[in-house]
């Protein structure tokens, strides 16, 4: 039986600003199962990042409940257990690397967990291999490319052996090659190591690879389903002024003109198959 890793019930969160209270999450309910790969998309201010910060108790619910692997984030005694299970990667790679060599940086997490040195060595080597950065272990992090830095940041989390990896726009500051490197790494960790992944992004071409896509708007979940289902709602997405993958939009246009192309087409290859059966 598949284990449910994350259970969110009627989650409410608001920010207090000089302009008054701003509601960031207005009753979000969500279940995420072990091994799932969930992409969350939506505009700035839609509540994506606020939601992500609830997953490892960086923020606590103002109403409602967040359970991580059965642990309530509002329970202060469970804080470290929760943080150990949920690793987070943020947008700017330069803000997350702290040590002078790659291996020290990756060792920082497990050291903090009080793991014995011999075991740390094993974990660091495994974590660096899993993100394809093993040969860089002696390098200085600040001399790496953006994509490499983000992979080291991910390795630092993998070394803590979490169950859930939460990525908040990890590719926003990277070039196309860096973006691909990070996406390939995250997909592999999900497929091969069974990590549960929550991936927040503005790039629809990344969301296409998720098993499930959640669209947020003004603090609520407005669409939720497999990418094929969510992206086929071209008009709903355009109303939210979100991008639709180019091939999905073309499929929609072609079917308007009577061509028999399924609305679930996401990639160039799928479009080629649809047109040349």
């Amino acid at each position, binding site marked *: 039986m598949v284990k449910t890793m994350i259970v969110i019930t009627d989650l409410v969160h608001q920010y207090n600003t000089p302009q008054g209270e701003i509601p960031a999450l207005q009753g979000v309910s969500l279940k995420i199962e072990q091994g799932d790969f969930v992409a969350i998309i939506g505009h700035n201010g839609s509540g994506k990042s606020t939601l992500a910060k609830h997953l490892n108790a960086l923020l606590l619910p103002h109403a409602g409940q967040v359970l991580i692997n059965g642990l309530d984030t509002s329970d202060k005694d469970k804080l470290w257990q929760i943080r150990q299970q949920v690793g987070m990667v943020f947008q700017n790679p330069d803000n997350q690397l702290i040590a002078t060599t790659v291996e020290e940086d990756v060792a920082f997490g497990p050291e903090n967990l009080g793991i014995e040195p011999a075991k740390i060595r094993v974990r660091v080597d495994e974590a660096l291999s899993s993100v394809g950065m093993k040969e860089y272990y002696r390098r200085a992090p600040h001399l790496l490319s953006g994509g490499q830095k983000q992979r080291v940041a991910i390795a630092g989390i993998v070394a803590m052996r979490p169950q859930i990896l939460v990525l908040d726009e990890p590719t926003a500051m990277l070039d196309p090659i860096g973006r691909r490197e990070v996406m390939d790494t995250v997909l592999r960790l999900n497929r091969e190591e069974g990590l549960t992944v929550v991936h927040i992004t503005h790039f629809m071409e990344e969301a296409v690879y998720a098993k499930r896509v959640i669209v947020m708007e003004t603090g609520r979940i407005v669409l939720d389903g497999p990418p094929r289902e969510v992206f086929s709602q071209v008009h709903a997405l355009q109303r939210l002024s979100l991008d639709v993958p180019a091939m999905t939009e*073309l499929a929609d246009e072609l079917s308007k003109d009577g061509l028999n192309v399924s609305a679930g087409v996401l990639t160039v290859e799928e479009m080629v198959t649809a047109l040349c059966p």
Partner: protein
Amino acid sequence: MSIKLTGVSYIYQPKTPYEYQALKNIDLEIGEGDFIGLIGHTGSGKSTLIQHFNGLLKPTAGEVAVDGLNIAAKDVKLKTIRQKVGMVFQYPEHQLFEETVSADIAFGPKNMGVPEGEITAKVKKAMQMVNLDYKKYKDLSPFGLSGGEKRRAAIAGVLAMEPKYLILDEPTAGLDPRGREEILAQVEKLHKQGITVVLVTHSMDDVARLVNRLVVINHGEIVYNDAPRQVFSQDQSLQQIGLDIPTVAQLMLRLKEKGWPVRTDLLTIQEAKEEILKVVRGVGHA
């Protein structure tokens, strides 16, 4: 009038063990009214190249002339060059520093020695150009604005100097789709108003849509300098240097491989749709 580079090479840290040649013998002319897309992956020499446009870097060999003025000549004031060539760097909002939006935008013209009485008019005009309402925003702190608004305020700071040429280094990086759309629409409008624009970007779909000429740089050399349609219709060579082509261009190339009699120099969804319908309905086969 133009920005003209002739035989430009640039070497970082020459005559040291770290010597690195970032630009190799570049010939490039950016004419008045051009809208140029500059693409190339990280480390290709893009940023080094644009820093030559306003004299932030001076060529190790060759010559850069802005409206006929050689940027390395002793009698040419860099102030004059920098007034003509406005440069918006990556994440320009990191350079906002004043207490109010209007003070921040006024900083450039003040520094250029514009008389006090004329500054407000320039600030107003610049804010209008980026669609920030003067009354609403002038007294706000730039730090309280949204990501897209901050970036527009930072761009207004450059526009207030009334440059003839505007160089934008990845102006949409890190913005959400709505913010990206806003900035690109502004840039397009600025170009229509007569400003010459150079847009450095990673987004092939954006350049395909907007620019009239595409300059592709790789290992410090210009490998393409042509209309986007021409550049993107040659799939393999771009992919060999690690660059994508727009999704629509990819599709047309794949269909052609499958034996469809389609054009490969198409860029928009609308164009692709018409071409596909033409083939499916058998028009053009006769």
